[in-house]
């Protein structure tokens, strides 16, 4: 399908390599440092670029939501090859629940114009509520195929291998459709130097939740409130030994002691 329009939802998150922390007053995840493109979303961006290319040309746009105007993660997706982005940024968005996020992203997708395909990750690495893609499909009135591990466009339909508890299902759906892709579905490309330079010139339109007509948002729109935050009972570390060539015997003794061998 030539000229296919694809929108990928991307999340910008704190680097997962640094330990997460909670804001002491709101108990929200702190997201005040530099944000990066969620690894989970790099798969979606790559999938979109490959599908557009194999369709003989198409256009990949990205949408994102962040309370603080952050764009660095979006630039990474643009450097990979997406052509434009819409960022919904609004201090009022802090504390939004997954449902509000889906409504906001739906507004951003509609701002670009209803695409043939919407792609999202199955869940984010930092918050992992794991419902936004399917909620977004429902808000947009689209069919959806979640947990896709293989995606192919045939004519005006997608053919997907969808992960199940016991294996996978083959699923077909006419476009337009929302697809959530599992990690590892494709190998994300590294942005080239040219891609990184070009990305700086690509357009990111910034809008507020109010611009999109989504209200209420943030803490007041969330149908939930923090009740308590407590330390879990920590698991105690046991014995740690350096392997001197005989460590396997310790494991055998440990298993014997438990009477499992």
């Amino acid at each position, binding site marked *: 399908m030539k000229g296919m329009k694809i929108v990928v939802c991307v999340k910008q998150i704190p680097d997962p390599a640094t330990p997460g922390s909670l804001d002491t007053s709101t108990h929200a995840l702190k997201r005040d440092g530099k944000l990066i493109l969620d690894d989970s979303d790099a798969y979606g961006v790559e999938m979109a670029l490959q599908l557009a290319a194999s369709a003989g040309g198409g256009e990949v746009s990205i949408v994102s939501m962040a309370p603080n105007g952050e764009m660095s993660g979006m630039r990474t997706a643009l450097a990979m090859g997406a052509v434009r982005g819409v960022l919904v940024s609004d201090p009022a968005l802090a504390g939004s629940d997954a449902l509000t996020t889906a409504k906001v992203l739906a507004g951003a997708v509609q701002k670009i114009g209803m695409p043939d395909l919407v792609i999202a990750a199955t869940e984010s690495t930092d918050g992992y509520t794991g419902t936004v893609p399917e909620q977004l499909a*429902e808000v947009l009135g689209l069919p959806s195929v979640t947990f896709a591990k293989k995606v192919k466009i045939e004519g005006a339909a997608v053919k997907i291998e969808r992960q199940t508890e016991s294996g996978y299902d083959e699923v077909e759906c006419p476009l337009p459709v929302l697809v959530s892709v599992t990690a590892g579905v494709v190998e994300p490309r590294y942005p080239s130097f040219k891609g990184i330079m070009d990305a700086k010139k690509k357009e990111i339109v910034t809008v507020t939740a109010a611009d999109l007509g989504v209200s209420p948002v943030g803490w007041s729109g969330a149908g939930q409130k923090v009740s308590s935050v407590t330390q879990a009972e920590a698991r105690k570390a046991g014995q*740690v030994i350096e392997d001197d060539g005989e460590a396997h015997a310790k494991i055998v003794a440990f298993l014997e002691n438990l009477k499992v061998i």
Partner: protein
Amino acid sequence: MAVNNIWVFAQGANGAATTFTLELLTKARSLASNVSAFVAGDGASLAGELGKFGATKVYSTGDLGGRLVGVAASAAMKALIDGGDKPDLILFPQNYDGRDTLARLSVKLNSTVLTNNIDISVNGDEVVATTPIFGGNVLFATAFTGAGPHLASFRPKSFAAEPSNGAAAQVVAVAVPDTGVTGAAKVTAVHVEESTGPKLDEANIVVSGGRGLGESKNYGLVEELAKLLHGAPGASRAIVDAGWVPYSYQVGQTGKVVKPSVYIAAGISGATQHMVGMKGSKNIIAINKDKEAPIFAVADLGIVGDVHKVLPKLIEALKARG
């Protein structure tokens, strides 16, 4: 709004209710006197078992004719609720179809969702769900605000399944309304990946491998050790993403939650994502060459060493025992 009426999103596999379903039913009946099961499929064949674990009613959609569960089940639930049959709380399993249904329904009801929970409590009008964060080091409890039905999903093995020995649940057939264009996706073929030995989430011993194995062919060591111990092989997300083993092997936040008697982590550093799926194991043995690896903080026996040396010797020693 007190909680009197709870629905459980119930699932069957191979003609029986899943253990996950029975866990949720057990929890539900500790919270409310009126517990119903909702089955997106043939609920009648599960009515006996669902009743035995506390459901007095089972809503059954019958065969979905290739439609995906999320769209069909959420539409059927919404129709029941609009018709006045309204639960105060719906419990979902944190798995593929559970998540899809929960998400679609939340938009239809304009209701928030609380996911990844390991516990839920009801205190008068307040319903509080608890999820572990930061690798399970912190318990985050969240209360629903606003009117029900409240929607929550749970990780497997959050509750122990115990029968109440109730009578078979009364079967209520429910129609799936026309889902229009949102129901356009169709399942055209079903593939079951056969595996031998015990199932990963039911095995008494689990041996998992990670990036520290170096390359995919070394995963054979993990499989061999698991087989010798009559256990199941598992994997970290890193090597599943790398394509060494299928997703069904993955232990962790986005994979399976396991609680075996013995968990052996070979070449796994212990990312939060992984720890969430195995910290509940009774005994943990970790082998990793980096002595700073976080996995050692939860291990009962930690071996700082090279998996390529330790595993072959361990396999040899176990074989020698016969």
